[in-house]
């Protein structure tokens, strides 16, 4: 139990559970199953995007990808256009979305590496370019996904009266894979080493620039993937489909126990934090609170959690 409490990610799950109970208190216990289903269905997108962001943030101070919302928006449009409402073209559409994300990731890295622009500026300026491309490419229209793809992204298997979203299961498997990559591969160890001390990593034989390149490319790729999946889930692509993932991708990383200073990453925490944020929104919705107040409360809660979770770590 004590060992469990020492895990930094446990607090994000505790938070999610507390908010969940708070939400149930209003409904008088009604709709718990539906809430769990909804929470997992929405949290999985934050986890996919957050995983990419986590690898980038783990590279150390200053590393962040702010182009994710634009990336997601463009990839959703690319995927829907290539699929063209035709189920046969789904794999091609996903590949195109991945490709679009990958190109964006590589573009980000080139700005950072070749032009020596700080990542925060590079990815932010990249996101303006991407957004413009998206607007002229998608013409601001909502493009519908093929019916089979939309059904797949919304597919739920009833287990004991609760609908289990199939995509959530897939993303849980993906998270396990990401944890293995982080801890047990040369790439993952290199990311952790660079985040702690980039110079020491270089002198220990870590191929620093190669790893940084791969990380920004990976983050872009995951952004592209989320774009395609979101377009399927919400039954349509749009320019602003990724907007909420700017704050969310960073919030889940930080609340989940990943160090903003780099070198320490935490994958289970991504799930806890994503569930926490989604359930919080569901709860605030069920209070019938206006959108403005909801944003204020969400912001305050994120600050509160970071302060609470950051306390004992700062004493280290």
């Amino acid at each position, binding site marked *: 139990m004590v060992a469990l409490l020492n895990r930094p990610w446990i607090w994000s799950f505790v938070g999610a559970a507390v908010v969940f109970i708070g939400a149930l208190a209003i409904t008088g216990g009604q709709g718990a199953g539906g809430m769990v289903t909804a929470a997992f269905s929405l949290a999985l997108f934050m986890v996919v995007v957050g995983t990419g962001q986590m690898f980038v943030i783990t590279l150390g101070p200053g590393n962040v990808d702010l182009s994710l919302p634009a990336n997601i928006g463009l990839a959703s449009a690319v995927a829907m256009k290539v699929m063209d409402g035709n189920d046969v073209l789904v794999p091609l559409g996903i590949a195109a979305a991945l490709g679009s994300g990958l190109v964006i990731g590589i573009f980000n890295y080139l700005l950072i590496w070749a032009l020596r622009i700080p990542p925060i500026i590079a990815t932010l300026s990249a996101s303006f370019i991407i957004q413009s491309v998206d607007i002229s490419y998608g013409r601001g229209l909502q493009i519908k996904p093929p019916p089979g793809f939309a059904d797949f992204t919304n597919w739920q298997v009833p287990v004991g009266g609760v609908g289990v979203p199939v995509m959530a299961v897939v993303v849980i498997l993906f998270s396990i894979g990401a944890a*293995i990559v982080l801890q*047990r*591969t*040369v790439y993952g*160890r*290199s990311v*952790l*080493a660079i985040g*702690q*001390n980039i*110079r*020491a*990593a270089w*002198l*220990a*034989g*870590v*191929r620093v620039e190669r790893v940084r390149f791969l990380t920004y490319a990976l983050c872009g790729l995951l952004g592209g993937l989320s774009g395609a999946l979101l377009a399927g889930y919400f039954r349509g692509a749009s320019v602003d489909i990724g907007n909420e993932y700017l704050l969310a991708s960073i919030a889940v990383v930080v609340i989940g126990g990943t*160090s903003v200073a780099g*070198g*320490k990453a935490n994958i289970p925490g991504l799930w806890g934090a994503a569930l926490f944020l989604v359930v919080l929104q569901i709860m605030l919705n069920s209070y019938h609170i206006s959108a403005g107040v909801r944003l204020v409360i969400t912001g305050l809660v994120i600050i509160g959690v970071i302060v609470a979770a950051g306390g004992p770590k700062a004493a280290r």
Partner: protein
Amino acid sequence: MVGQATNIVRLDGVEKHFGAVRALDGVDLRVDAGECVGLVGHNGAGKSTLMHVLAGTLAPGQGRITIAGSEQPGYSVSLAHELGIRCVFQELSLCPNLTVAENARVMHPGLTGIGWRRRAGDLIVGKLDEIFPGHGIGAGDVISDLSIGRRQMVEVARAFTETDKPVKLVILDEPTSSLDAHSAGQLLAFVRRAVANGQGIILISHLLGEILGNSDRVVVMRDGKVVVADRADAFDRDKLVAAMGAEHHERATPAAAAGAARGEKPVRIRARPERQSDGAELVAHQGEVIGLAGLAGHGQTRLLLQIFEAAYRRKAGFEVQAPVAFVAGDRQSDGVFPLWSIAENVGIRSIAAMRKGLLISPEREAELADAWRQKMKIRTPDMNNPILSLSGGNQQKALFARALASDAVIILMDDPMRGVDIGTKLEVYDLIREEALKGRTFLWYTTEMDELQNCDHVYVFRNGRIVADLRSGEVTEEKVIQSSFKEVA
């Protein structure tokens, strides 16, 4: 005999435990005005912990601290400063983003109002001039731009600066470890002047000659206790080593076999420093230990880094024939991964080799860590403990293990023995020789003259150039110093 009143500090029965580790186990120590106390002991003997207690950064678990005759129960950093006790820690404590003058101001809150920056600058540069004439450091220099040796000079000088409160006692923890022989001599001469002026000094060093030559009294620590304390002239080198508890091995001339055989083995490295105007270049063959000597910061580290780069990417003027590994001397900025365990720190250079399939094998990682814990005698119950739980010298051993455990054939060492005790040093020297016999090549930048005796061949650097090229038989302190200062055409 010296009376109670002249004690600057007096510690009685001081204890400090970190979990199961008894870092200090009942230490008594006194320092009088006008006295230099030399403190020696192995890595992990408790010297640094004791100094942290004296500086107020660690509160003792048990025991009394008496300063200038009055007991101090709530002893703290600010109180220590108030009472004129200053400390130069082994891990340098300057703010890297601030200038020399600004760092001086950090210690002197009294420097306020218009022109504080100039006054702080005058204060610190004045002290630098006094201790290290010809230091070449400006008040406006940013710390991170200074070499580690110069940072150490600033740190030392800052400890001796005075504004409103007089400095009574200065603790110098390995103050010469990053200094070349010339600046180290300047510092030690200054220590004697300070002592003559009635200040107290605690000098911690692994260089026994430094201790014996400059202390009035010597205190030997082992396993968290003071084992011997006596006048310095009661000791000689052998006695001191015996008191510290290391077996003293008489060493054969290490580089005996080499020298004559030079050139028969294949060449591993050819490197020409950028500023080299004549034809001289550094050449290292298989199985050689090559020393890089000269005053600190004269291009030795730079050349090592360039050779390191050239091993990964073609570089004009360099020829590197085998994989390299680097042993950092400045372990905080170049070596240690602070969030990781000892095992992870040792293994990072070998992660690719420890894979089974695509994944790093935890068994192989544990095997490697344990094998090198034994080989390097890293003092820890568990290699999964955080690297920062180790004393400085043991962290350095872990960095050696990282390089030696790897597949590297060429090992580049950047003054790697900083803060390492004499017993460990002798073991590492033997290990280096053993590995060289197996065919590894070592490039060894060192600021310690003794270590050059372990090299087959020594290149002396000055202003980024090779100015002398000495065979093992020819390496003497005079020769190295002579070439370090000689003007070349």
